[in-house]
Protein backbone atom coordinates (compact mmCIF):
# COMPACT_ATOMS: atom_id res chain seq x y z
CA UNK A 1 0.00 0.00 0.00
CA UNK A 2 2.78 2.42 -0.89
CA UNK A 3 1.57 5.94 -1.48
CA UNK A 4 -1.44 5.41 0.76
CA UNK A 5 0.34 5.62 4.08
CA UNK A 6 -1.60 7.90 6.42
CA UNK A 7 1.46 9.74 7.72
CA UNK A 8 0.16 10.39 11.23
CA UNK A 9 0.30 6.65 11.83
CA UNK A 10 4.07 6.42 11.44
CA UNK A 11 5.23 8.55 14.41
CA UNK A 12 2.61 6.90 16.63
CA UNK A 13 3.86 3.46 15.62
CA UNK A 14 7.42 4.62 16.33
CA UNK A 15 6.36 5.71 19.81
CA UNK A 16 4.82 2.27 20.28
CA UNK A 17 8.05 0.51 19.35
CA UNK A 18 10.15 2.83 21.53
CA UNK A 19 7.82 2.32 24.48
CA UNK A 20 8.41 -1.43 24.38
CA UNK A 21 12.10 -1.22 23.49
CA UNK A 22 13.18 1.40 26.04
CA UNK A 23 12.62 -0.66 29.23
CA UNK A 24 14.54 -3.58 27.70
CA UNK A 25 17.37 -1.24 26.73
CA UNK A 26 17.44 0.18 30.26
CA UNK A 27 17.57 -3.31 31.71
CA UNK A 28 20.44 -4.31 29.42
CA UNK A 29 22.28 -1.07 30.20
CA UNK A 30 22.10 -1.74 33.94
CA UNK A 31 23.08 -5.42 33.59
CA UNK A 32 26.16 -6.50 35.59
CA UNK A 33 27.77 -8.10 32.51
CA UNK A 34 31.11 -8.95 34.21
CA UNK A 35 29.56 -10.83 37.12
CA UNK A 36 26.48 -12.09 35.23
CA UNK A 37 27.54 -15.73 35.08
CA UNK A 38 28.18 -15.77 38.83
CA UNK A 39 24.81 -14.11 39.50
CA UNK A 40 22.99 -16.67 37.38
CA UNK A 41 24.67 -19.55 39.21
CA UNK A 42 23.49 -18.49 42.67
CA UNK A 43 21.05 -20.89 44.35
CA UNK A 44 18.30 -18.28 44.55
CA UNK A 45 18.36 -18.06 40.74
CA UNK A 46 18.81 -21.75 39.89
CA UNK A 47 16.17 -22.86 42.44
CA UNK A 48 13.67 -20.37 41.04
CA UNK A 49 14.44 -21.24 37.43
CA UNK A 50 14.10 -24.96 38.03
CA UNK A 51 10.85 -24.51 39.94
CA UNK A 52 9.41 -22.14 37.34
CA UNK A 53 10.20 -24.37 34.38
CA UNK A 54 8.92 -27.57 35.98
CA UNK A 55 5.73 -26.08 37.46
CA UNK A 56 4.92 -24.33 34.17
CA UNK A 57 5.43 -27.65 32.35
CA UNK A 58 3.23 -29.50 34.83
CA UNK A 59 0.53 -26.82 34.53
CA UNK A 60 0.68 -27.13 30.73
CA UNK A 61 0.36 -30.91 30.98
CA UNK A 62 -2.71 -30.62 33.22
CA UNK A 63 -4.17 -27.98 30.92
CA UNK A 64 -3.73 -30.28 27.91
CA UNK A 65 -5.39 -33.24 29.64
CA UNK A 66 -8.49 -31.33 30.72
CA UNK A 67 -8.32 -28.36 28.34
CA UNK A 68 -8.53 -30.27 25.04
CA UNK A 69 -11.72 -32.14 26.01
CA UNK A 70 -13.13 -28.86 27.35
CA UNK A 71 -12.30 -27.10 24.07
CA UNK A 72 -13.95 -29.96 22.17
CA UNK A 73 -17.14 -29.65 24.19
CA UNK A 74 -17.22 -25.88 23.60
CA UNK A 75 -16.50 -26.22 19.87
CA UNK A 76 -18.52 -29.27 18.88
CA UNK A 77 -21.49 -29.72 21.17
CA UNK A 78 -24.55 -27.61 21.78
CA UNK A 79 -24.97 -28.22 25.50
CA UNK A 80 -27.28 -25.72 27.20
CA UNK A 81 -25.48 -22.75 28.67
CA UNK A 82 -22.42 -23.30 26.54
CA UNK A 83 -21.63 -19.61 26.20
CA UNK A 84 -21.87 -19.22 29.96
CA UNK A 85 -19.44 -22.10 30.40
CA UNK A 86 -17.05 -20.44 27.95
CA UNK A 87 -17.30 -17.14 29.83
CA UNK A 88 -16.63 -18.92 33.14
CA UNK A 89 -13.64 -20.84 31.80
CA UNK A 90 -12.06 -17.69 30.38
CA UNK A 91 -12.73 -15.61 33.49
CA UNK A 92 -9.19 -16.18 34.89
CA UNK A 93 -7.82 -14.41 31.78
CA UNK A 94 -9.40 -11.11 32.74
CA UNK A 95 -9.55 -11.55 36.52
CA UNK A 96 -6.76 -9.95 38.61
CA UNK A 97 -4.58 -13.01 39.42
CA UNK A 98 -4.53 -12.07 43.12
CA UNK A 99 -8.28 -12.54 43.20
CA UNK A 100 -7.80 -15.92 41.52
CA UNK A 101 -5.26 -16.88 44.19
CA UNK A 102 -7.65 -15.85 46.97
CA UNK A 103 -10.46 -17.85 45.36
CA UNK A 104 -8.16 -20.88 45.13
CA UNK A 105 -7.41 -20.54 48.86
CA UNK A 106 -11.11 -20.58 49.72
CA UNK A 107 -11.56 -23.68 47.56
CA UNK A 108 -8.40 -25.70 48.27
CA UNK A 109 -6.98 -24.12 51.44
CA UNK A 110 -6.75 -25.89 54.78
CA UNK A 111 -10.25 -24.70 55.64
CA UNK A 112 -11.41 -24.46 52.01
CA UNK A 113 -14.57 -25.82 50.48
CA UNK A 114 -12.81 -28.90 49.05
CA UNK A 115 -9.39 -28.53 50.69
CA UNK A 116 -10.84 -28.76 54.24
CA UNK A 117 -12.43 -32.23 53.96
CA UNK A 118 -9.40 -33.50 51.97
CA UNK A 119 -6.99 -32.24 54.68
CA UNK A 120 -9.10 -33.70 57.47
CA UNK A 121 -9.19 -37.17 55.90
CA UNK A 122 -5.78 -37.46 54.20
CA UNK A 123 -3.62 -34.70 55.66
CA UNK A 124 -2.79 -33.50 52.16
CA UNK A 125 -2.48 -29.77 51.67
CA UNK A 126 -2.20 -27.96 48.36
CA UNK A 127 -1.28 -24.35 49.27
CA UNK A 128 2.32 -23.36 50.04
CA UNK A 129 3.72 -26.36 48.13
CA UNK A 130 5.11 -26.83 44.63
CA UNK A 131 1.78 -28.45 43.72
CA UNK A 132 0.13 -25.25 44.87
CA UNK A 133 2.24 -23.37 42.33
CA UNK A 134 1.09 -25.82 39.65
CA UNK A 135 -2.54 -25.34 40.70
CA UNK A 136 -2.27 -21.54 40.55
CA UNK A 137 -0.49 -21.71 37.17
CA UNK A 138 -3.11 -24.05 35.71
CA UNK A 139 -5.96 -21.86 36.93
CA UNK A 140 -4.53 -18.78 35.25
CA UNK A 141 -2.97 -20.29 32.11
CA UNK A 142 -5.45 -22.96 30.98
CA UNK A 143 -7.89 -20.49 29.33
CA UNK A 144 -5.21 -19.60 26.77
CA UNK A 145 -5.04 -23.23 25.69
CA UNK A 146 -8.80 -23.76 25.74
CA UNK A 147 -9.58 -20.72 23.59
CA UNK A 148 -6.82 -21.47 21.07
CA UNK A 149 -7.76 -25.12 20.70
CA UNK A 150 -11.46 -24.29 20.51
CA UNK A 151 -10.92 -21.97 17.55
CA UNK A 152 -8.67 -24.60 15.96
CA UNK A 153 -11.41 -27.23 16.34
CA UNK A 154 -14.00 -24.87 14.90
CA UNK A 155 -11.84 -24.25 11.84
CA UNK A 156 -11.11 -27.97 11.31
CA UNK A 157 -12.88 -29.85 8.53
CA UNK A 158 -15.25 -32.27 10.29
CA UNK A 159 -15.66 -34.37 7.15
CA UNK A 160 -12.41 -36.12 8.10
CA UNK A 161 -14.30 -37.41 11.11
CA UNK A 162 -17.11 -38.58 8.82
CA UNK A 163 -14.50 -40.41 6.75
CA UNK A 164 -13.14 -42.11 9.87
CA UNK A 165 -16.67 -43.14 10.88
CA UNK A 166 -17.28 -44.78 7.49
CA UNK A 167 -14.09 -46.76 8.11
CA UNK A 168 -15.58 -48.19 11.30
CA UNK A 169 -13.84 -45.98 13.88
CA UNK A 170 -15.53 -45.50 17.26
CA UNK A 171 -16.05 -41.98 18.61
CA UNK A 172 -13.06 -42.29 20.92
CA UNK A 173 -10.84 -43.58 18.10
CA UNK A 174 -11.98 -40.68 15.90
CA UNK A 175 -11.20 -38.19 18.66
CA UNK A 176 -7.79 -39.69 19.33
CA UNK A 177 -6.62 -40.45 15.80
CA UNK A 178 -8.37 -37.80 13.66
CA UNK A 179 -9.71 -34.86 15.69
CA UNK A 180 -6.67 -34.26 17.89
CA UNK A 181 -4.01 -34.76 15.15
CA UNK A 182 -5.93 -32.43 12.81
CA UNK A 183 -6.02 -29.79 15.56
CA UNK A 184 -2.30 -30.25 16.33
CA UNK A 185 -1.22 -26.76 15.15
CA UNK A 186 -3.69 -25.06 17.48
CA UNK A 187 -2.81 -27.45 20.31
CA UNK A 188 0.90 -26.64 19.96
CA UNK A 189 0.22 -22.90 19.83
CA UNK A 190 -2.16 -23.14 22.77
CA UNK A 191 0.33 -25.15 24.81
CA UNK A 192 3.11 -22.63 24.17
CA UNK A 193 0.88 -19.71 25.15
CA UNK A 194 -0.27 -21.60 28.22
CA UNK A 195 3.30 -22.40 29.24
CA UNK A 196 4.46 -18.81 28.71
CA UNK A 197 1.58 -17.51 30.80
CA UNK A 198 2.31 -20.04 33.56
CA UNK A 199 5.99 -19.10 33.56
CA UNK A 200 5.19 -15.43 34.20
CA UNK A 201 2.46 -16.05 36.75
CA UNK A 202 2.85 -13.92 39.91
CA UNK A 203 -0.32 -12.83 41.66
CA UNK A 204 -2.19 -16.10 42.07
CA UNK A 205 1.02 -17.94 42.93
CA UNK A 206 2.13 -15.57 45.68
CA UNK A 207 -1.37 -15.55 47.16
CA UNK A 208 -2.03 -19.27 47.02
CA UNK A 209 1.44 -20.82 47.24
CA UNK A 210 3.49 -18.19 49.04
CA UNK A 211 7.09 -17.22 48.41
CA UNK A 212 9.42 -19.86 49.90
CA UNK A 213 12.79 -20.18 48.19
CA UNK A 214 13.33 -23.65 46.74
CA UNK A 215 9.66 -24.63 47.34
CA UNK A 216 7.30 -22.05 45.90
CA UNK A 217 9.51 -19.14 44.87
CA UNK A 218 9.26 -18.97 41.08
CA UNK A 219 11.25 -16.62 38.85
CA UNK A 220 8.82 -13.70 38.89
CA UNK A 221 8.59 -13.91 42.68
CA UNK A 222 12.37 -14.04 42.99
CA UNK A 223 12.72 -11.00 40.72
CA UNK A 224 10.25 -9.02 42.82
CA UNK A 225 12.00 -9.92 46.06
CA UNK A 226 15.50 -9.30 44.71
CA UNK A 227 14.58 -5.81 43.51
CA UNK A 228 14.30 -4.76 47.15
CA UNK A 229 17.65 -6.14 48.26
CA UNK A 230 19.90 -7.12 45.36
CA UNK A 231 19.47 -5.25 42.07
CA UNK A 232 22.13 -7.24 40.21
CA UNK A 233 20.43 -10.53 41.04
CA UNK A 234 17.05 -9.08 39.97
CA UNK A 235 18.50 -8.05 36.60
CA UNK A 236 20.18 -11.42 36.11
CA UNK A 237 16.89 -13.20 36.87
CA UNK A 238 15.06 -10.88 34.48
CA UNK A 239 17.52 -11.57 31.67
CA UNK A 240 17.08 -15.30 32.14
CA UNK A 241 13.29 -14.91 31.98
CA UNK A 242 13.58 -12.79 28.82
CA UNK A 243 15.81 -15.43 27.21
CA UNK A 244 13.33 -18.20 28.06
CA UNK A 245 10.38 -16.13 26.78
CA UNK A 246 12.17 -15.41 23.52
CA UNK A 247 12.80 -19.14 23.09
CA UNK A 248 9.00 -19.62 23.23
CA UNK A 249 8.21 -16.64 21.04
CA UNK A 250 10.46 -17.65 18.14
CA UNK A 251 8.57 -20.86 17.21
CA UNK A 252 5.27 -19.03 17.76
CA UNK A 253 6.23 -16.13 15.52
CA UNK A 254 5.60 -17.85 12.20
CA UNK A 255 2.39 -19.58 13.09
CA UNK A 256 0.62 -17.21 15.37
CA UNK A 257 2.05 -13.73 15.42
CA UNK A 258 2.49 -13.47 11.65
CA UNK A 259 -1.22 -14.13 11.33
Amino acid at each position, binding site marked *: MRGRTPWVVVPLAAVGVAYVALPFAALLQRAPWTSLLDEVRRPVVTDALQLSVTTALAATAFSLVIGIPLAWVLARTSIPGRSSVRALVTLPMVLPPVVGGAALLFAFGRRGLLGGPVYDTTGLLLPFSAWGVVAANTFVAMPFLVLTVESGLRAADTRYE*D*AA*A*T*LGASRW*TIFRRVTVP*NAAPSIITGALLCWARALGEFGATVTFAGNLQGRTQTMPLAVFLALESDRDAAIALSLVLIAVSLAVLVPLRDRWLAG
Partner: protein
Amino acid sequence: MLHAVLGVHLGDLHLDIDLRIDDGEVVALLGPNGAGKTTALRAIAGLHPLDHGRITLDDTVVDDPGTGTFVPTAERSMGMVFQDHLLFPRQSALDNVAFGLRARGASKAAARHAARAWLDRFDLTDHAGALPRTLSGGQSQRVALARALATEPRLLLLDEPLAALDASTRLRVRTELRRHLATFAGARLLVTHDPLDAIVLADRLVILEAGRVTQTGTPALVTSRPASRYVAELVGINLLGGVADGERGVLLESGTVLTVADPLPGQEVSVAIRPRAIALHRHQPDGSPRNAWRATVADLEADRDRVRVTLAGPVPVTAELTPAAVAELDLAHGTPVWASVKAVDLTTYER
Protein backbone atom coordinates in the same frame (compact mmCIF):
# COMPACT_ATOMS: atom_id res chain seq x y z
CA MET B 1 -27.77 -55.54 -2.16
CA LEU B 2 -28.96 -52.12 -1.10
CA HIS B 3 -32.55 -51.04 -0.88
CA ALA B 4 -32.90 -47.41 0.19
CA VAL B 5 -36.19 -45.60 0.56
CA LEU B 6 -34.97 -42.16 1.50
CA GLY B 7 -37.04 -39.36 2.99
CA VAL B 8 -34.94 -36.43 4.18
CA HIS B 9 -35.95 -32.82 4.71
CA LEU B 10 -33.04 -30.44 4.81
CA GLY B 11 -33.80 -26.75 4.35
CA ASP B 12 -35.38 -26.32 0.93
CA LEU B 13 -34.52 -29.86 -0.11
CA HIS B 14 -37.14 -32.59 0.17
CA LEU B 15 -35.44 -35.82 -0.80
CA ASP B 16 -37.85 -38.62 -1.59
CA ILE B 17 -36.40 -41.53 -3.57
CA ASP B 18 -36.54 -45.31 -3.79
CA LEU B 19 -33.23 -46.81 -4.81
CA ARG B 20 -32.32 -50.47 -5.28
CA ILE B 21 -28.84 -51.66 -6.18
CA ASP B 22 -27.98 -55.31 -6.72
CA ASP B 23 -24.62 -56.86 -5.95
CA GLY B 24 -22.26 -56.37 -8.84
CA GLU B 25 -24.20 -53.39 -10.12
CA VAL B 26 -22.80 -49.87 -10.51
CA VAL B 27 -25.46 -47.19 -10.22
CA ALA B 28 -24.80 -43.50 -10.83
CA LEU B 29 -26.95 -40.90 -9.14
CA LEU B 30 -26.78 -38.05 -11.61
CA GLY B 31 -28.19 -34.58 -11.18
CA PRO B 32 -27.41 -30.90 -10.84
CA ASN B 33 -25.96 -29.29 -7.72
CA GLY B 34 -28.57 -29.07 -5.00
CA ALA B 35 -30.64 -32.00 -6.31
CA GLY B 36 -29.92 -33.96 -3.15
CA LYS B 37 -27.31 -36.42 -4.45
CA THR B 38 -24.80 -35.95 -1.64
CA THR B 39 -27.57 -35.88 0.96
CA ALA B 40 -28.79 -39.24 -0.37
CA LEU B 41 -25.29 -40.65 -0.06
CA ARG B 42 -24.81 -39.27 3.44
CA ALA B 43 -28.16 -40.73 4.52
CA ILE B 44 -27.17 -44.17 3.22
CA ALA B 45 -23.83 -43.88 5.03
CA GLY B 46 -25.59 -42.94 8.28
CA LEU B 47 -24.02 -39.48 8.36
CA HIS B 48 -27.49 -37.95 8.13
CA PRO B 49 -30.51 -39.64 9.74
CA LEU B 50 -33.67 -40.33 7.74
CA ASP B 51 -36.85 -38.43 8.46
CA HIS B 52 -38.85 -41.26 6.98
CA GLY B 53 -38.18 -44.30 4.83
CA ARG B 54 -35.98 -47.33 5.37
CA ILE B 55 -32.48 -48.41 4.37
CA THR B 56 -31.77 -52.11 4.07
CA LEU B 57 -28.32 -53.51 3.38
CA ASP B 58 -28.51 -57.17 2.41
CA ASP B 59 -30.97 -58.41 5.04
CA THR B 60 -30.15 -55.85 7.71
CA VAL B 61 -32.25 -52.76 8.32
CA VAL B 62 -29.75 -49.99 9.11
CA ASP B 63 -32.10 -47.02 9.33
CA ASP B 64 -35.86 -46.98 9.87
CA PRO B 65 -37.30 -44.07 11.83
CA GLY B 66 -40.65 -45.90 11.84
CA THR B 67 -39.27 -48.55 14.20
CA GLY B 68 -36.55 -46.40 15.73
CA THR B 69 -33.78 -48.49 14.15
CA PHE B 70 -30.54 -46.66 13.50
CA VAL B 71 -27.21 -48.41 12.99
CA PRO B 72 -24.38 -45.87 13.42
CA THR B 73 -22.06 -45.21 10.48
CA ALA B 74 -19.14 -47.07 12.05
CA GLU B 75 -21.20 -50.25 12.30
CA ARG B 76 -22.51 -50.25 8.72
CA SER B 77 -20.60 -52.36 6.25
CA MET B 78 -19.95 -49.56 3.79
CA GLY B 79 -16.91 -47.98 2.22
CA MET B 80 -17.01 -44.40 1.06
CA VAL B 81 -14.81 -42.38 -1.26
CA PHE B 82 -15.27 -38.67 -0.59
CA GLN B 83 -15.23 -35.82 -3.05
CA ASP B 84 -11.76 -34.51 -2.25
CA HIS B 85 -10.70 -37.94 -0.96
CA LEU B 86 -10.20 -36.73 2.65
CA LEU B 87 -7.06 -38.73 3.22
CA PHE B 88 -5.83 -38.14 6.78
CA PRO B 89 -3.18 -35.49 6.12
CA ARG B 90 -0.69 -36.56 8.79
CA GLN B 91 -0.75 -40.26 7.97
CA SER B 92 1.13 -42.04 5.20
CA ALA B 93 -0.76 -43.68 2.34
CA LEU B 94 -0.16 -47.03 4.07
CA ASP B 95 -1.58 -45.87 7.41
CA ASN B 96 -4.56 -44.30 5.66
CA VAL B 97 -5.40 -47.65 4.07
CA ALA B 98 -4.69 -49.50 7.34
CA PHE B 99 -6.94 -47.11 9.33
CA GLY B 100 -10.20 -48.99 8.83
CA LEU B 101 -8.67 -52.35 9.70
CA ARG B 102 -7.08 -50.96 12.87
CA ALA B 103 -10.36 -49.27 13.82
CA ARG B 104 -12.03 -52.66 13.48
CA GLY B 105 -9.57 -54.24 15.86
CA ALA B 106 -6.73 -55.59 13.73
CA SER B 107 -3.23 -55.33 15.19
CA LYS B 108 -0.95 -52.67 13.74
CA ALA B 109 1.20 -55.27 12.00
CA ALA B 110 -1.72 -57.21 10.55
CA ALA B 111 -3.45 -54.03 9.36
CA ARG B 112 -0.30 -52.77 7.67
CA HIS B 113 0.31 -56.13 6.04
CA ALA B 114 -3.18 -56.14 4.53
CA ALA B 115 -2.92 -52.45 3.58
CA ARG B 116 0.31 -53.14 1.72
CA ALA B 117 -1.45 -55.77 -0.40
CA TRP B 118 -4.16 -53.22 -1.26
CA LEU B 119 -1.56 -50.65 -2.26
CA ASP B 120 0.12 -53.26 -4.48
CA ARG B 121 -3.18 -53.99 -6.11
CA PHE B 122 -3.72 -50.31 -6.91
CA ASP B 123 -0.18 -49.79 -8.28
CA LEU B 124 0.81 -47.73 -5.26
CA THR B 125 3.61 -49.95 -3.94
CA ASP B 126 6.18 -47.14 -4.22
CA HIS B 127 3.98 -44.62 -2.45
CA ALA B 128 3.28 -46.54 0.77
CA GLY B 129 5.27 -44.09 2.90
CA ALA B 130 4.09 -40.95 1.10
CA LEU B 131 2.02 -38.30 2.86
CA PRO B 132 -1.23 -37.40 1.06
CA ARG B 133 -0.09 -33.91 0.04
CA THR B 134 2.79 -35.37 -1.98
CA LEU B 135 0.49 -37.62 -4.05
CA SER B 136 -0.95 -36.68 -7.44
CA GLY B 137 -4.72 -36.42 -7.86
CA GLY B 138 -4.95 -39.85 -9.44
CA GLN B 139 -2.75 -41.50 -6.79
CA SER B 140 -4.70 -39.84 -4.01
CA GLN B 141 -7.93 -41.15 -5.46
CA ARG B 142 -6.55 -44.69 -5.64
CA VAL B 143 -5.47 -44.47 -1.99
CA ALA B 144 -8.98 -43.28 -1.09
CA LEU B 145 -10.48 -46.20 -3.00
CA ALA B 146 -8.08 -48.70 -1.42
CA ARG B 147 -8.88 -47.27 2.01
CA ALA B 148 -12.62 -47.65 1.41
CA LEU B 149 -12.27 -51.20 0.09
CA ALA B 150 -9.76 -52.45 2.67
CA THR B 151 -12.47 -53.23 5.22
CA GLU B 152 -14.22 -55.32 2.54
CA PRO B 153 -17.56 -53.54 2.74
CA ARG B 154 -20.76 -54.86 1.18
CA LEU B 155 -21.52 -51.48 -0.37
CA LEU B 156 -19.20 -48.90 -1.90
CA LEU B 157 -20.26 -45.25 -2.04
CA LEU B 158 -18.44 -42.70 -4.18
CA ASP B 159 -19.19 -38.98 -3.86
CA GLU B 160 -18.08 -37.07 -6.97
CA PRO B 161 -14.98 -39.26 -7.22
CA LEU B 162 -13.49 -37.35 -10.16
CA ALA B 163 -14.48 -33.79 -9.28
CA ALA B 164 -11.22 -32.98 -7.50
CA LEU B 165 -9.10 -33.81 -10.56
CA ASP B 166 -8.00 -31.45 -13.30
CA ALA B 167 -9.19 -32.09 -16.83
CA SER B 168 -5.94 -33.61 -18.07
CA THR B 169 -5.74 -36.40 -15.47
CA ARG B 170 -9.47 -36.91 -15.31
CA LEU B 171 -9.70 -38.92 -18.51
CA ARG B 172 -7.04 -41.41 -17.43
CA VAL B 173 -8.28 -41.68 -13.84
CA ARG B 174 -11.83 -42.27 -15.08
CA THR B 175 -10.65 -45.25 -17.10
CA GLU B 176 -8.63 -46.57 -14.13
CA LEU B 177 -11.57 -46.13 -11.80
CA ARG B 178 -13.79 -48.10 -14.15
CA ARG B 179 -11.27 -50.92 -14.13
CA HIS B 180 -10.94 -50.88 -10.32
CA LEU B 181 -14.68 -50.65 -9.72
CA ALA B 182 -15.08 -53.79 -11.79
CA THR B 183 -12.98 -55.77 -9.29
CA PHE B 184 -15.38 -55.08 -6.41
CA ALA B 185 -18.21 -57.57 -6.13
CA GLY B 186 -20.68 -55.69 -3.92
CA ALA B 187 -23.15 -52.95 -4.81
CA ARG B 188 -21.67 -49.64 -5.89
CA LEU B 189 -23.34 -46.24 -5.85
CA LEU B 190 -21.66 -43.19 -7.25
CA VAL B 191 -22.84 -39.62 -7.20
CA THR B 192 -21.83 -37.19 -9.91
CA HIS B 193 -22.97 -34.09 -11.73
CA ASP B 194 -20.95 -35.03 -14.82
CA PRO B 195 -22.97 -37.15 -17.27
CA LEU B 196 -19.80 -38.44 -18.94
CA ASP B 197 -18.51 -39.85 -15.63
CA ALA B 198 -21.89 -41.46 -15.02
CA ILE B 199 -22.14 -42.98 -18.49
CA VAL B 200 -18.60 -44.38 -18.49
CA LEU B 201 -18.66 -45.73 -14.92
CA ALA B 202 -22.21 -46.95 -14.33
CA ASP B 203 -24.43 -49.80 -15.50
CA ARG B 204 -27.52 -47.82 -14.66
CA LEU B 205 -28.27 -44.11 -14.32
CA VAL B 206 -30.69 -42.63 -11.82
CA ILE B 207 -31.47 -39.02 -12.66
CA LEU B 208 -32.21 -36.94 -9.58
CA GLU B 209 -33.93 -33.61 -9.91
CA ALA B 210 -34.94 -31.46 -6.91
CA GLY B 211 -35.00 -34.48 -4.60
CA ARG B 212 -36.93 -36.80 -6.93
CA VAL B 213 -36.00 -39.43 -9.48
CA THR B 214 -37.07 -38.32 -12.95
CA GLN B 215 -35.64 -41.17 -14.98
CA THR B 216 -33.72 -44.38 -14.49
CA GLY B 217 -32.21 -46.81 -17.00
CA THR B 218 -29.06 -47.90 -18.78
CA PRO B 219 -26.83 -45.11 -20.14
CA ALA B 220 -27.83 -46.11 -23.68
CA LEU B 221 -31.53 -45.85 -22.85
CA VAL B 222 -31.32 -42.57 -20.94
CA THR B 223 -29.15 -40.85 -23.55
CA SER B 224 -31.17 -42.07 -26.51
CA ARG B 225 -34.62 -41.55 -24.97
CA PRO B 226 -34.36 -38.82 -22.35
CA ALA B 227 -37.65 -38.64 -20.50
CA SER B 228 -37.68 -34.88 -20.18
CA ARG B 229 -36.14 -31.86 -21.75
CA TYR B 230 -34.15 -31.44 -18.59
CA VAL B 231 -32.69 -34.94 -18.83
CA ALA B 232 -31.94 -34.39 -22.51
CA GLU B 233 -29.97 -31.30 -21.61
CA LEU B 234 -28.22 -33.00 -18.71
CA VAL B 235 -27.22 -36.23 -20.42
CA GLY B 236 -27.26 -34.96 -23.98
CA ILE B 237 -24.28 -37.07 -24.89
CA ASN B 238 -23.85 -39.04 -28.09
CA LEU B 239 -23.21 -42.70 -27.48
CA LEU B 240 -22.03 -44.92 -30.36
CA GLY B 241 -21.24 -48.62 -30.42
CA GLY B 242 -18.35 -50.03 -32.40
CA VAL B 243 -15.53 -52.54 -32.54
CA ALA B 244 -11.80 -51.92 -32.33
CA ASP B 245 -10.20 -51.67 -35.72
CA GLY B 246 -6.45 -51.66 -35.18
CA GLU B 247 -5.06 -49.80 -32.24
CA ARG B 248 -6.77 -46.41 -32.43
CA GLY B 249 -9.68 -46.88 -34.81
CA VAL B 250 -13.28 -47.67 -33.94
CA LEU B 251 -15.35 -49.26 -36.69
CA LEU B 252 -18.98 -48.13 -36.41
CA GLU B 253 -21.96 -50.16 -37.66
CA SER B 254 -22.20 -47.88 -40.70
CA GLY B 255 -18.66 -48.78 -41.71
CA THR B 256 -17.21 -45.41 -40.74
CA VAL B 257 -13.99 -45.50 -38.73
CA LEU B 258 -13.39 -42.95 -35.97
CA THR B 259 -9.86 -42.30 -34.76
CA VAL B 260 -9.33 -41.95 -31.01
CA ALA B 261 -6.40 -40.45 -29.11
CA ASP B 262 -5.67 -43.22 -26.62
CA PRO B 263 -5.22 -46.95 -27.20
CA LEU B 264 -8.57 -48.72 -27.07
CA PRO B 265 -9.50 -50.53 -23.86
CA GLY B 266 -10.95 -53.62 -25.55
CA GLN B 267 -12.61 -55.15 -28.60
CA GLU B 268 -16.22 -54.07 -28.17
CA VAL B 269 -16.26 -50.41 -27.26
CA SER B 270 -18.62 -47.50 -26.72
CA VAL B 271 -17.72 -44.03 -27.89
CA ALA B 272 -19.14 -41.01 -26.07
CA ILE B 273 -19.05 -37.57 -27.71
CA ARG B 274 -20.23 -34.35 -26.08
CA PRO B 275 -22.48 -32.39 -28.49
CA ARG B 276 -20.34 -29.29 -28.08
CA ALA B 277 -17.25 -31.14 -29.29
CA ILE B 278 -18.77 -31.63 -32.77
CA ALA B 279 -17.99 -28.91 -35.31
CA LEU B 280 -19.98 -28.37 -38.50
CA HIS B 281 -18.63 -27.01 -41.79
CA ARG B 282 -20.11 -26.18 -45.19
CA HIS B 283 -17.05 -27.65 -46.97
CA GLN B 284 -14.71 -30.51 -46.24
CA PRO B 285 -12.37 -29.36 -43.44
CA ASP B 286 -8.68 -29.06 -44.36
CA GLY B 287 -6.45 -32.10 -43.95
CA SER B 288 -5.94 -32.69 -40.23
CA PRO B 289 -6.00 -35.68 -37.86
CA ARG B 290 -9.64 -34.94 -37.15
CA ASN B 291 -12.50 -37.27 -37.80
CA ALA B 292 -14.70 -35.80 -40.52
CA TRP B 293 -17.76 -37.15 -42.32
CA ARG B 294 -20.58 -36.01 -44.58
CA ALA B 295 -23.98 -35.56 -42.93
CA THR B 296 -27.35 -33.98 -43.41
CA VAL B 297 -29.17 -31.77 -40.93
CA ALA B 298 -32.18 -33.81 -39.80
CA ASP B 299 -33.48 -31.51 -37.09
CA LEU B 300 -32.78 -28.15 -35.45
CA GLU B 301 -33.92 -27.35 -31.95
CA ALA B 302 -33.25 -24.10 -30.09
CA ASP B 303 -32.43 -24.68 -26.44
CA ARG B 304 -31.83 -21.45 -24.51
CA ASP B 305 -28.57 -20.03 -25.83
CA ARG B 306 -27.63 -23.11 -27.86
CA VAL B 307 -29.06 -24.88 -30.89
CA ARG B 308 -29.09 -28.68 -30.96
CA VAL B 309 -28.52 -29.96 -34.48
CA THR B 310 -29.41 -33.60 -35.14
CA LEU B 311 -27.38 -35.11 -37.96
CA ALA B 312 -28.32 -37.99 -40.27
CA GLY B 313 -25.60 -39.94 -41.99
CA PRO B 314 -22.95 -42.53 -41.18
CA VAL B 315 -22.45 -41.15 -37.64
CA PRO B 316 -25.85 -40.46 -36.04
CA VAL B 317 -25.08 -37.71 -33.52
CA THR B 318 -26.41 -34.44 -32.17
CA ALA B 319 -24.21 -31.36 -32.25
CA GLU B 320 -24.63 -28.24 -30.17
CA LEU B 321 -23.89 -24.84 -31.78
CA THR B 322 -24.38 -21.20 -30.97
CA PRO B 323 -27.24 -19.47 -32.81
CA ALA B 324 -24.59 -17.30 -34.49
CA ALA B 325 -22.83 -20.35 -35.91
CA VAL B 326 -26.14 -21.78 -37.16
CA ALA B 327 -26.88 -18.50 -38.93
CA GLU B 328 -23.41 -18.28 -40.43
CA LEU B 329 -23.61 -21.82 -41.81
CA ASP B 330 -27.17 -21.11 -42.91
CA LEU B 331 -28.39 -24.45 -41.55
CA ALA B 332 -31.88 -25.75 -42.22
CA HIS B 333 -33.58 -29.14 -42.53
CA GLY B 334 -31.78 -31.15 -45.18
CA THR B 335 -28.68 -28.93 -45.41
CA PRO B 336 -25.67 -31.05 -46.39
CA VAL B 337 -22.72 -30.42 -44.06
CA TRP B 338 -19.37 -31.83 -42.99
CA ALA B 339 -19.11 -32.80 -39.35
CA SER B 340 -15.80 -33.14 -37.52
CA VAL B 341 -14.56 -34.05 -34.05
CA LYS B 342 -11.06 -34.14 -32.61
CA ALA B 343 -9.67 -37.52 -31.59
CA VAL B 344 -9.10 -36.24 -28.03
CA ASP B 345 -12.81 -35.42 -27.71
CA LEU B 346 -13.81 -39.06 -28.11
CA THR B 347 -14.22 -40.93 -24.83
CA THR B 348 -14.06 -44.68 -25.31
CA TYR B 349 -14.73 -47.48 -22.87
CA GLU B 350 -15.23 -51.20 -23.04
CA ARG B 351 -18.81 -52.32 -23.55
